[in-house]
């Protein structure tokens, strides 16, 4: 099959881009200094908004957790494309010879890694601040993996749709959040199921989110080329 070399090139390009992005994030410390504090801030704000003594916070924990992930993840995605918009980098990427699908996968991977770090920290934050007792580890982990895949695949695709436009900061949430609504519903329900000790209710949601992520990986691999073309 002659598709094999193409796949290898795509994956090695993806690896190159992901390594570059993560290195850049580690160097710039924007995630560390801004995104993570923002995420924790959201958790605290929720506690202010919902009285922690009346059990509201406890009931709403899964939803609040995922909303915090979504909003702080949105910042990470904005950032992921702001980096590529700097000073002629967009042109350099187009000229580089990197395959668009490889760039897509690489950026997805780096966003996913950042999201995972964020989710772990938020998880600790929730457990400590909201006093959530954690049960159903397997379902929780599966949900985190699948939801992260779903958010990063869709986020990267819509990130490039909004990239390079003057209105990108406002356009990305408008495009992305309705699309991610099923992921929010699914991950929240799955977390509720896990925490309430009825994991069997949660697995269909994991399936749904897997389908979602698969749709977006395919769309991203094929759609990124034409999208990168026009700035």
């Amino acid at each position: 099959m002659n598709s094999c070399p193409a796949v290898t090139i795509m994956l090695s390009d993806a690896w190159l881009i992901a390594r570059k992005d993560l290195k850049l994030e580690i160097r710039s410390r924007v995630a560390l200094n801004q995104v993570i504090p923002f995420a924790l801030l959201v958790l605290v704000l929720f506690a202010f908004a919902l009285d922690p003594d009346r059990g509201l916070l406890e009931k709403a924990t899964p939803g609040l957790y995922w909303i915090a992930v979504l909003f702080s993840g949105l910042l990470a995605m904005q950032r992921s494309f702001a980096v590529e918009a700097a000073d002629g980098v967009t042109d350099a990427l187009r000229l580089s010879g990197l395959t668009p699908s490889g760039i897509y996968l690489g950026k997805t991977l780096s966003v996913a890694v950042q999201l995972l770090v964020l989710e772990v920290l938020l998880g600790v934050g929730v457990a400590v601040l909201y006093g959530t007792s954690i049960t159903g580890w397997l379902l929780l982990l599966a949900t985190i993996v699948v939801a992260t895949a779903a958010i990063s695949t869709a986020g990267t695709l819509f990130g490039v749709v909004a990239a390079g436009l003057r209105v990108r900061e406002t356009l990305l949430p408008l495009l992305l959040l309705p699309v991610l609504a099923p992921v929010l519903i699914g991950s929240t329900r799955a977390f509720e199921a896990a925490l309430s000790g009825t994991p069997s209710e949660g697995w269909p949601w994991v399936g749904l989110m897997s389908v979602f992520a698969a749709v977006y990986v395919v769309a991203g691999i094929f759609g990124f080329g034409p999208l990168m073309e026009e700035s």
Partner: protein
Amino acid sequence: MEPDDPTFRSVTAPVVHLRGAVALLGRFPALAGVDLDVDRRRIVLLRGANGAGKTTLLRALAGLVPITSGEAIVLGVDLRVDRRAVRHRVGLLAHGTGLYDELTVADNVRFWTRAARADSADADAAMARLGLDGRLSDVAVGRLSTGQRRRTSLACLLARRPELWLLDEPHAGLDKEGRDIVDDLVRDAAAAGATIILSSHELDRSIELADEIVTLGGGVALDEFVSGGDDHAQ
């Protein structure tokens, strides 16, 4: 009217062949029917006032700006059919640096070298050539001076080993030593078989360097426009 008579044309196919090439920036025809032929190993200087279309011409040759009408063949690739195919074979030094500010010089050069599927030894050689080895290579690009960034961009271009060099004001922001390096690089590249098109306001320096001079104005190549008539410019 003496349009390109076949006998005058080089035996080998030209690296760049434009006929009546039009490129739009939004609705503005930045290129309004450019005719240009450049043979292999030539060093061509583009000159013209600000807004004459120099930058757009270079970007169009790199396959970044679509040619909406006319003929446009670069390195044997018809840009109107597939302008992506030419991109990895050209090197464009643009106004933007094309560098990540947070990464070091070495990181940047190695990343773009690997992206072009070139050897990372090339990256080191290119950095050495531009005087970026040693202490400078571990400095984040964001902390470099304009001239040092320019050198880093040039190192990225050099390491890619492009067949067609498109240099948009390569001398701008460089000191005397840097300009000499640029001129040497250009001559060496041409000697090694590459083709170079550069725009510059450093006319004394560039005219000496160039084999040919093309003057742009109003989005057309004026020399050709005046002598060639407008029959093939449509």
